[in-house]
């Protein structure tokens, strides 16, 4: 369903992504893990062209995009196949929760106001915010904001949902509600690619884990394999460092 071919992006001579090749099947839930600066977020942002790779080809559901021949209207069209959830929520601060979810439906999908409102309301019910439809972003907690953002993404009925560290900016006690919402979306069968540092969550939800290191995918497999029996030494180092950090948390 998604084919990424030779995706390469360098920034000021530094190679951030080095000939990435990934194939994702429908309904797969792919988690990208790796150290900071490995290029995880950049890779995700390339998929909806918020970053402009220099070389490569991305195909999503038969719609192919050659990044070196990017045209403005083609970019806009291509983006409509994916929806993105950001680390910093990025809700529209001047619009309330309902208007946030409606925006894409009205402007991009050109739905009537009634239809957009009905879908938006339905999505907010699904993420458990029925009593927050009239609240503005700054009147919502971080977890609620992120749930609105997920509703906004899902309302667009995307072929792929992209999540860029959706819980990294949240207070620990708010992480759970957002993870539960993502899980709910996962159960609906949508194809998902997420970048996350929540290893236990990744283990729990992902059907496939990619380990990204220095712009290359060096590990690719189901979570049981990548977490318990990684092939590469670098993956083992990363995971052991991660687990020891977790243990220190508990000891304190």
């Amino acid at each position, binding site marked *: 369903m998604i084919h990424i071919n030779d995706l390469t992006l360098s920034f000021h001579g530094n190679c951030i992504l080095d000939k990435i090749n990934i194939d994702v099947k429908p309904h797969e839930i792919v988690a990208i893990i790796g150290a900071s600066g490995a290029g995880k977020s950049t890779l995700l942002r390339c998929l909806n062209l918020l970053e402009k790779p220099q070389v490569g080809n991305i195909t999503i559901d038969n719609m192919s995009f050659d990044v070196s021949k990017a045209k403005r*209207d083609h970019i806009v069209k291509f983006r409509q196949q994916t929806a993105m959830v950001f680390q910093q929520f990025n809700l529209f601060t*001047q619009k309330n929760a309902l208007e946030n979810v409606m925006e894409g439906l009205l402007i*991009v999908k050109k739905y009537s106001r009634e239809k957009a409102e009905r879908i938006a309301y339905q999505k907010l019910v699904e993420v458990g915010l029925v009593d927050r439809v009239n609240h503005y972003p700054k009147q919502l907690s971080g977890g609620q904001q992120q749930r609105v953002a997920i509703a906004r993404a899902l309302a667009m009925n995307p072929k792929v949902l992209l999540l860029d560290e959706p819980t990294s900016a949240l207070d620990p006690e708010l992480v759970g509600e957002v993870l539960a919402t993502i899980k709910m979306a996962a159960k609906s069968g949508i194809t998902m690619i997420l970048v996350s540092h929540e290893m236990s969550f990744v283990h729990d939800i992902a059907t496939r884990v990619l380990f990204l290191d220095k712009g290359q995918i060096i590990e690719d497999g189901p979570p049981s394999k990548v977490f318990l029996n990684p092939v590469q030494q670098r993956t083992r180092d990363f995971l052991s460092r991660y687990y020891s950090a977790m243990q220190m948390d508990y000891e304190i």
Partner: protein
Amino acid sequence: MPNIIDFGLIFTQIPTLLAYLPVTLFITIFSMLLGVILGLMIAIIKMNKIPVLTQIAALFVSFIRGTPLLVQLYLSFYGLPILLRYINYFFATDFNINGLPAMLFVLIAFSFNEAAYNSETIRAALQSVNKGQIEAAQSLGMTYSQVLRRIVIPEAFIVVLPNLGNTLIGLLKGTSLAFVCSVTEMTGRGKTLAGHSYRYFEVYISLALIYWALTILIELLVKYLEKRLTISDDKNTPSYRRGKWL
């Protein structure tokens, strides 16, 4: 008590002056609207670094900000007819140069002046909008102009509002220079009034009071708008801040 100052006259001539308030307000509002639209266009040109247009815009802003408003009014007043004469000559058109209304020169001068000053504050406001929101809008599949119209401009408007209030006040008082293009607005009318009564001081006191009152009104209006557009932090009672007219 000697009749050095005619206190009664200060107030009794206010209605006569106010008869020309519509002219003052027309110049102010028209120039403000056109100034904001042109200023927005210049800001967008500069932000996107559109070749040639950016340089022209930079030159325009630099010139307008570097020359007195009074000089700009004279340039408009004397320059436009000359420009038309050239156009008539080179394009064999037949514009009636003497038929140009004086108001046109005034509106052009004030609008351009406003546009130059507004362009910088508008640009700063547009650039203050959080990049994350722009990315979120783009990722929904919105085009550049949709993002600008639906997300960036509404947000920037709140930032730029106090500044626009300031320039509006400056503009209102600036309109008192319109008489140099032989447009009679409030101050112009005051001059002719004083010319008859020789009560110059009283007229200028009356004018000062009117401008002052108008300025206070504008300040109140801007404060009200700001209050209406600001979202409260209260989590329990969300603000339904948008009324029917906004």
